[in-house]
């Protein structure tokens, strides 16, 4: 509607330019026409804009703005998310959509940078049809969008971004993150490591050189130091994002001879690193932890015994996932459509869409079956507890999600041609997270070695035991 108005006005203005320059040059009325045209155009657009939007009838479709990387290097991580969203939305629509209304998604490419993403967010938010935004993959995008979400009062659900800064002030009304944050994600690795290798002395870290890499290193180091004070960090390397060559870093790592190498490299960077480090014996000389290792299991032959995880509970082959027919169906459909089984970014996206759908259902239940407004949807997300494909997500008072953390090691099985995760542990979401409002790093430093004693042990998470 608005677009039509704008384009008509533009056309009018352009046509008057033509008059001005080609045909009517020199004639006085040309000037007048131009001014009148400009004013008329502005007025026309104004009229279009102020046409009231019909309130809270059932719309013809539920619009979702979904923000992910669909171009550039980060698409290695973003496209599994988009694929999962496509599949999940098809599944939701096949069952009649949300409250009988089909779901349509508009994808926004985060690779265009904060400015473009904000412009797109505002454009989508301006259309009343788009009631919820699923944003975003990158923490920088989430941080940039959060204040706008609060100001425009649009429920915005972070599907992957995990910086602990996002919801730290605890004042968010419209920003939700049903997938947890960096604090539990990386403490889980410290605890698992110390359970599996209690005598570890030296640790080296190789993380990508941006906030995610530095945050993870800080959290992981703080947790290790708190739980085992005599641990020494012998190297901290931050290769730049998208680096094609890791030989220098690998040389540093092999000469430092650490007991443990920790890394949260991801995407093509992680594949590159693994391919270059394997022939140089890094995986035999040190215990390697790849925090996002699950994403490359199907692509790169990882040796046995590498500690990997899924930054949450989104492992499609976990005992809980296997016990859920929906998840099994989703994984098989994903495999047949995209040629690969889902990786954890796919599961995070699918779970987030389930979370959004649940919010619609709760909101409609609360207001007696009427179509919910944006504020009602945000209200329904507040404190909600939703069963996902791989577990449950509990929304805390600060809108951060409590999800369990699954960590394990790579093992070969006869069931799959690629390594899978074995010797798993599933830490309860709330056990690894500071209270809302507490400074996370101060909380980690206050942990005592006894803290880990009460937690489940590696190998405790098996089929049939929950």
């Amino acid at each position, binding site marked *: 509607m608005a677009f039509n108005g704008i384009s008509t006005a533009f056309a009018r203005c352009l046509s008057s330019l033509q008059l001005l320059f080609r045909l009517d040059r020199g004639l006085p009325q040309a000037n007048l026409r131009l001014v009148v045209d*400009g004013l008329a155009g502005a007025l026309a657009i104004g009229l279009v804009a102020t046409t009231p939007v019909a309130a809270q009838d059932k719309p013809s479709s539920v619009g979702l703005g979904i923000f992910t990387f669909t171009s550039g290097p980060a698409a290695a991580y973003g496209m599994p998310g988009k694929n999962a969203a496509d599949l999940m939305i098809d599944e939701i629509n096949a069952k009649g959509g949300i409250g009988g209304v089909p779901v349509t998604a508009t994808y926004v490419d985060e690779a265009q940078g904060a400015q473009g993403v904000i412009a797109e967010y505002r*454009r989508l*938010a*301006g259309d009343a049809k788009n009631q919820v935004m699923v944003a975003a993959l990158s923490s920088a995008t989430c*941080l*940039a969008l959060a204040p706008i979400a609060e100001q425009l009062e649009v429920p915005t659900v972070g599907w992957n971004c995990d910086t602990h800064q996002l919801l730290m002030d605890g004042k968010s009304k419209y920003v939700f993150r049903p997938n947890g944050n960096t604090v539990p994600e990386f403490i889980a690795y410290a605890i698992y490591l110390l359970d599996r290798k209690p005598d570890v002395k030296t640790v080296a870290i190789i993380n990508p050189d941006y906030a995610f890499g530095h945050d993870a290193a800080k959290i992981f180091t703080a947790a290790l130091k708190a739980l085992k004070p005599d641990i020494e960090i012998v190297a901290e390397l931050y290769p730049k994002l998208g680096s094609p060559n890791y030989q220098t870093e690998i040389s540093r790592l092999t000469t430092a001879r650490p007991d443990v190498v920790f890394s949260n490299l991801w995407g093509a960077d992680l594949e590159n690193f693994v391919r270059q480090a394997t022939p140089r014996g890094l995986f035999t000389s040190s215990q390697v932890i790849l925090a996002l290792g699950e994403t490359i299991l199907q692509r790169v032959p990882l040796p046995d015994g590498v500690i990997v995880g899924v930054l949450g509970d989104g492992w499609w082959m976990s005992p809980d996932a296997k016990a859920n027919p929906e998840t099994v169906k989703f994984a098989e459909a994903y495999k047949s459509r995209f040629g690969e089984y889902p990786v954890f970014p796919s599961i995070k996206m699918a779970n987030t869409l389930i979370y959004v759908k649940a919010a619609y259902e709760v909101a409609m239940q609360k207001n007696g079956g009427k179509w919910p407004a944006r504020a009602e949807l945000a209200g329904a997300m507040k404190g909600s507890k939703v069963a996902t494909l791989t577990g449950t997500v509990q929304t805390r008072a600060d809108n951060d999600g409590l999800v369990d953390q699954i960590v394990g090691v790579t093992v070969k099985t006869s069931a799959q041609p690629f390594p899978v995760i074995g010797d798993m542990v599933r830490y309860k979401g709330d056990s690894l997270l500071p209270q809302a409002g507490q400074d996370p790093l101060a909380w980690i430093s206050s942990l005592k070695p006894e803290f880990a004693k009460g937690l489940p042990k590696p190998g405790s998470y098996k089929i049939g035991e929950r």
Partner: protein
Amino acid sequence: MRIILAAAAVLTLAGLAFAAPWLQFVLTLAIAKGFAALGVAVLLRAGLISIGHAMFFAASAYGAAFLARAGINDLGLLLILSVLVSALIGAIAGSFLVRYRAIFFAMLNLAVSMVFYALCAKLYGVTGGTDGMPVPIPAVFGMVFAEPAFKSILFYLSLVLMVLVGLVVHRYLDSPLGHALSAVHSNEIRLEYLGIPVWAILLIAYTISAALAGLGGAVAGFAIGRVVPDFAFWTASGHLVLIAVLGGIGGVPGAFIGALFLELLHSAAVTVTDAWNLFVGMTLIAVIMFMPQGIYGLFERKEAPSP
């Protein structure tokens, strides 16, 4: 004729933003980039291509973020101070950069701006690394506004600034100082023999262009609400040069026309396709192939007296 045309354009912009609120942000950003591209265009007059002006753009946005963190909370004051910050950095960097010409000037600008970028990204504790720093909504003459109202104020303010600054820069380019720039381009040695200090002229131009980029950066910082190191990345600098060349360096409006064209094109392309980069690139090639004078060149040629 020109004045009427310009007035109609400004009115149309004001109307557009009123019509589609989401477009207001795009237009604010376009005007902000227009300021920076104008800075690049000033130097282009002297035949100097700076592939590093995003540094000043980012420096001023970071300046606003730091000043806001230090407790300064007034839009006018923040704008003036952050522009001064970037002008100061411009004067310092310019003092040695304007000794170079051609590719050396371009590359040294690039190098300095990438050092700045690296500092912003690496000084994790100070600048927040790649997550950046928030630029909170400041008060306007002591009045605190909610987000939508503030963004409207910012947009109309930048519209007014565009006209005022445009006029000032127009006067500057028409003054002896401004004409000396084209003289540097055509014959620098002759200029020295005439007793005109080329170094001083270029330093003044460089500082003005840094201040213009800074003004754009400050507006962009307030519009976006967050400043990240990517603001200073060399592709952003290249983007500014592109805008300046695309719009045409024949006159002040060129930079703003180029910026508006590119931002609107980008916004249109991303709504249509994932391959928006391809779309934008092809249009640019078309414009550069068929409009060597830039878009503004179209207007200019019509105005020129026939022989």
